[in-house]
């Protein structure tokens, strides 16, 4: 048997993109081998579209929905809801890594902490994009029309990506702070449902009580849903740039929070 170590070439630290790419590679393999996860998360929006589409069908006759009917109104909402729900689970992988010991390997390697976060975030976005395409497809089958065409769909998908980034990063930060699956999932449930219903995801503001309207105006979920709706429909609200700016700012803050939480985790061990 020959020596393992000789020759010993000087090893340079991998570039940030290589590090991120390898973290992404790892998580993509995991998500493919655990295919039931992504598959279930594709089934969920199908159920939502059928369920909400049917239950709230008669809303479509109200004047607030115009001629398009409820399904056109609903699909952008379900699109954002889908990435919101799966994003909220993003932190669970970190808790698994902490419990198994894989996190110790990351933290004792010369890897940028932001590459660890970014690699997994990109994997979440790849899965989220696949889900989003399925939502748009199912929506079309259910009768929704995307009058702004491909460009509009790209806008909606882009907004979904920004919204997903906010919730993936927030979930990651909470995971690294709590280090507890049950705490993370409970907190996600606590936030995700009100975030959905206190927004214009399923119902126009005009049909909501005054106090809910107030809240929904400041709810990032509302911003994302209205931007997505505007993109697919082709007519943008006045506040569109503010809403987009707010979402991007929140995504940047959440990303920073996640990276800082990873550093704080290491300081605590």
């Amino acid at each position, binding site marked *: 048997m020959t020596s393992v170590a000789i020759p010993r070439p000087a090893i340079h630290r991998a570039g940030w993109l290589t590090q991120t790419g390898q973290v992404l590679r790892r998580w993509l393999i995991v998500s493919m081998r655990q295919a039931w996860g992504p598959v279930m998360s594709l089934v969920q929006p199908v159920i939502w579209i059928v369920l909400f589409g049917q239950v709230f069908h008669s809303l479509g006759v109200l004047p607030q929905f115009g001629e398009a009917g409820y399904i056109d109104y609903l699909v952008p909402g379900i699109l954002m809801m889908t990435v919101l729900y799966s994003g909220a689970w993003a932190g669970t992988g970190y808790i698994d890594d902490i419990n198994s010991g894989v996190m110790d390997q990351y933290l004792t390697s*010369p890897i940028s902490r932001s590459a660890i976060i970014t690699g997994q975030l990109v994997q979440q976005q790849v899965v989220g994009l696949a889900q989003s395409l399925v939502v748009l497809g199912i929506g079309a089958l259910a009768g929704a029309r995307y009058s702004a065409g491909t460009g509009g769909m790209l806008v909606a998908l882009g907004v979904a990506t920004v919204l997903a980034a906010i919730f993936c990063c927030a979930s990651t930060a909470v995971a690294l702070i709590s280090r507890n699956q049950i705490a993370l999932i409970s907190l996600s449930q606590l936030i995700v449902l009100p975030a959905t219903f206190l927004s214009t995801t399923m119902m126009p503001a005009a049909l909501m009580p005054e106090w809910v309207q107030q809240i929904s105006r400041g709810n990032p979920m509302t911003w994302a849903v209205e931007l997505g709706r505007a993109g697919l429909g082709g007519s943008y609200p006045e506040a569109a740039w503010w809403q987009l700016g707010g979402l991007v700012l929140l995504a940047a803050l959440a990303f920073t929070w996640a990276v800082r939480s990873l550093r704080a985790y290491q300081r605590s061990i």
Partner: protein
Amino acid sequence: MSESTAPRSAIEASDLVKIYPGRGRRPAVHALDGLSLAVPEGRVYGLLGPNGAGKSTTTKILTTLSRPTSGSARVAGHDILREPDAVRGAIGYVSQGAGTDPFLTATENLEVAARLRGVSAADARARTIRLLDEFGLAEASARPVRTFSGGMRRRLDVAAALVHRPSVLFLDEPTTGLDPEARAAMWAEIRRLAGEEALTVILTTHYMEEADRLADRLLIVNRGRAVVQGSPGELKAALHGDSVRVTLVEPDPAGVRAAIAGVGGLRDVVVEAAGVGGVLAARTDDASAAVGAVISALDAAGIRYGQVAVSHPTLDDVYLHFVGHTFGEQTPAVTEGAAA
């Protein structure tokens, strides 16, 4: 210990202190209480001590996983606090947990680990094939790691820690939880690494036999402090004379001590009770005289005993001598260490 050719140190640590702050009603834990050590290059350096002695905490600090509350250390020539990434690039770390992703195959795990640490794609592939071959995992290379046995996983963890050709390898209790066959295989791997590579190995263990077989130098750690350092041979030689061991049946430690108080020529007397059994251990310069006197004394006091053995000092005796005596009465950890 002076050495004529003054080898460079792979690791130098001084006065490491680690305090985990308490929370609520949980008190603060002083995991390390001023530990210093110097590890020469190219050797297997053992950290031996009971559970909770501070071995793993020392490893975590030296691998940059954890920061010391105070104190300093250099690993592979780099300061752990000022140049953590330089240290990280020079070390491999096999923690007590898993180092690999269970859903990835052995090959994927090693390739990702190598690329993350800056190995080029081509080199990572070649290195992966070679390491899997050397660690006897070539046939399992395409299987997800979750299908591996405990011994295979451990070998893969060690292989993963070597992908970037580190100069210092940390093995934190590498054989804990392995069956005897897997343990023997791991010992063979560690010996091979120590012999073939220009590699310094830091091995933490609470198994005497493991420390005795593998470590060129040994540091016994207890309660967050270094107790004694030397090669296993030196440590054993430092205990003059022979060891007398008497296994006891349902012993009353105080009674046993009282019974043999009058026996001359005994040193380092330790009496342990563990369940229904126990052991009386002592050292003496004249074993033949001491054995007879001890047996007579026990008989006279009506103390039941089993086997009586005389031997040259073992690492168990070293451990009892330094840990059992320096730190007062026997603790459960000492009993456990002696039983291993």
